[in-house]
């Protein structure tokens, strides 16, 4: 019998019941909640007179539409100027109080983007099943977790039953061999993978990221990669547990201590695919060939190395793609064959659950130090992923580097990644963004998003246009 993949092991260890019809009941260890996808679930619980199955499985924090300006944040929820946002954040607060769920409220130092907060607090631990009503939940797969996004009905289902009805996905291995070049980051790796397999390439699969590049990568970097698994169509992305994982988790607030820690390590050590495990699909990339990436279009798969030009229709694989690209040229205001450096940038956003951790902020600061944001850039903002990331960066003096260069230094939240708060693009504006989606209207109606790494975004802010950070 062939060995098991990491995904197989996680699945088996959480299988409550297998039904005859092929569906399974899977146990959920950790459930993260935020203000946008939870209110209707809590309402459903109340209407059915149900209680959360296991309170300690749940942790909430508002992130999607909290304001990031100091002025609004100083007054807590009452300070949120937008009525609908304020009601939503207040509703989360009220629901957590009603049901007695732990919440890191708007001005708690532990507040932040759910996918930054979970790992930071040790609420995300290796081998857990982690869900959240947000598609970027795959982030937690960086710890060898089985983690994926769910809809609101499933949020309610998890609250009420601590389980989900699931169908097992197929196994895909994405292996990146070799060593990355200088200036090439985890973001470039995941964008290159999406560029290769396409935005539906991972649909129906759980992806394990393996190979030398991921072994060498920091935990923050692995989170960036797993975070974007969904942009390749896979709900689940993960990396095997190793010493780096365990070192990251050790001494976190909610990490096990003492005897339980030793027991945990023994278990976590098993969380990797067996040598003889069989994957349904294998994709291989050479890390040394990956360049810094820039997305040019309106889907994360419309991405190219910084040295290349916007592709022409002759390069499209079929009519469906030709239609897609034609619409993307028009929406993005680009012409086929145009150089990326020709694009006039208006705003720069460094933040989001993809790239707002301390390592991301340090990488941006390294590029920015001693330089100034180009006068043609209307706004360049840094939005740390959590209150603790912000505090850490300030202790390292990074905020001063950004402020001196002309960046705005904001309060933590999802911010301009999805423009549910006041941080958004105006129609037609181009933005170099470290977020995860470049869909039409994602960062504001008519806004034009270019996905890049924090270092590339920082360099673009200084130059006013895209440059190759390796030679900047």
């Amino acid at each position: 019998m062939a060995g098991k993949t990491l995904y197989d092991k996680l699945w088996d260890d959480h299988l409550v019941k297998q039904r005859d019809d092929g569906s399974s009941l899977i146990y959920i260890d950790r459930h993260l909640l935020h203000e946008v996808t939870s209110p209707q679930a809590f309402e459903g619980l109340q209407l059915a007179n149900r209680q959360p199955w296991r309170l300690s499985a749940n942790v909430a924090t508002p992130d999607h539409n909290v304001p990031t300006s100091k002025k609004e944040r100083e007054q807590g929820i009452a300070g949120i100027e937008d009525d609908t946002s304020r009601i939503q954040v207040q509703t989360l607060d009220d629901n957590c109080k009603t049901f007695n769920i732990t919440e890191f409220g708007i001005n708690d130092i532990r507040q932040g983007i759910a996918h930054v907060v979970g790992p930071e607090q040790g609420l995300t631990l290796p081998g857990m099943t982690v869900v959240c009503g947000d598609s970027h939940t795959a982030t937690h797969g960086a710890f060898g977790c089985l983690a994926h996004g769910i809809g609101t009905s499933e949020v309610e289902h998890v609250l009420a039953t601590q389980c989900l009805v699931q169908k097992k996905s197929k196994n895909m291995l994405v292996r990146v061999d070799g060593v990355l070049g200088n200036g090439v980051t985890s973001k470039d790796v995941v964008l290159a993978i999406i560029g290769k397999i396409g935005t539906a390439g991972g649909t129906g699969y759980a992806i394990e990221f393996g190979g030398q590049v991921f072994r060498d990568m920091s935990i923050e970097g692995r989170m960036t990669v797993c975070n974007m698994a969904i942009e390749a169509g896979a709900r689940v992305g993960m990396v095997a547990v190793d010493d780096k994982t365990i070192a990251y988790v050790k001494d976190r607030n909610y990490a096990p201590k003492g005897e339980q820690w030793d027991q945990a390590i023994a278990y976590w050590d098993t969380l990797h695919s067996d040598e003889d495990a069989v994957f349904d699909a294998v994709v291989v990339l050479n890390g040394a060939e990956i360049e810094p990436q820039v997305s040019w279009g309106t889907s994360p798969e419309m991405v190219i190395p910084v040295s290349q030009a916007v592709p022409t229709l002759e390069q499209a694989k079929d009519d469906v793609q030709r239609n897609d690209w034609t619409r993307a040229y028009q929406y993005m205001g680009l012409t086929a064959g145009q150089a990326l450096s020709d694009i006039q940038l208006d705003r720069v956003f460094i933040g989001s659950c993809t790239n707002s951790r301390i390592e991301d902020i340090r990488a941006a600061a390294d590029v920015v130090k001693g330089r100034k944001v180009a006068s043609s850039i209307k706004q360049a903002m840094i939005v740390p992923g959590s209150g603790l990331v912000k505090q850490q960066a300030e202790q390292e003096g990074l905020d001063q580097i950004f402020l001196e260069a002309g960046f705005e230094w904001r309060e933590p939240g999802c911010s301009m990644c999805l423009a549910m708060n006041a941080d958004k693009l105006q129609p037609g504006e181009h933005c170099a963004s470290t977020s995860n989606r470049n869909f039409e209207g994602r960062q504001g109606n008519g806004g034009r998003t270019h996905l890049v790494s924090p270092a590339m975004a920082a360099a673009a802010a200084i130059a006013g246009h895209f440059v190759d950070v390796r030679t900047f």
Partner: protein
Amino acid sequence: MKKYTVEQGVVAPLDRANVDTDLIIPKQFLKSIKRTGFGDNLFDELRYLDEGYLGQDISKRPINPEFVLNQPRYQGATILLARTNFGCGSSREHAPWALNEYGFRTVIAPSFADIFFNNCFKNGMLPVILSEEIVDQLFKECAEEGYQLTIDLEAQEVRTPKGDAFKFEIDPFRKHCLLNGLDDIGLTLQVADDIRAFEEKAKQVRPWVFQDIQA
């Protein structure tokens, strides 16, 4: 939940691939704390010429006459026909809520994004996967005004006016729930004893997972 058995209705063709959930229902409408009220803002950025916001009076908004759903012939459509990877992007269930409330209980496409696909079933909706060739054929046929399809879930069949019948696959559990309008949570709670037994075993192997975090 409303049962899904046989549905017959007008087909609206949305001829684009990778329709994402931001396109189906833009983020500003996600601020609602209700489950209803999203139908008016389905495909908001394509349907209207101005920028929409939550709670707006839509009767005063300029509509985009080019957009397929605004054409008189597709009024009252209940079946949406689309291209590959429909519903990609975010996990927002507001996307199926918006489609459902607008009147689409059925979406036909060659492929769907996983989370969207899953969310449909929780709302008594049926995402139907047909091959690219068949979907292509349906796009051509529905150029005819008043074109209707019949979706027969029991038979797992899409029937055309010309008499073609295309089979589709569906998970037996999901089919059962749709046909009978069953609530997932109620079904899962029927095996509450199994869940408790699982927890007792798991507490031995992975006690740290069950730590009380409320202290």
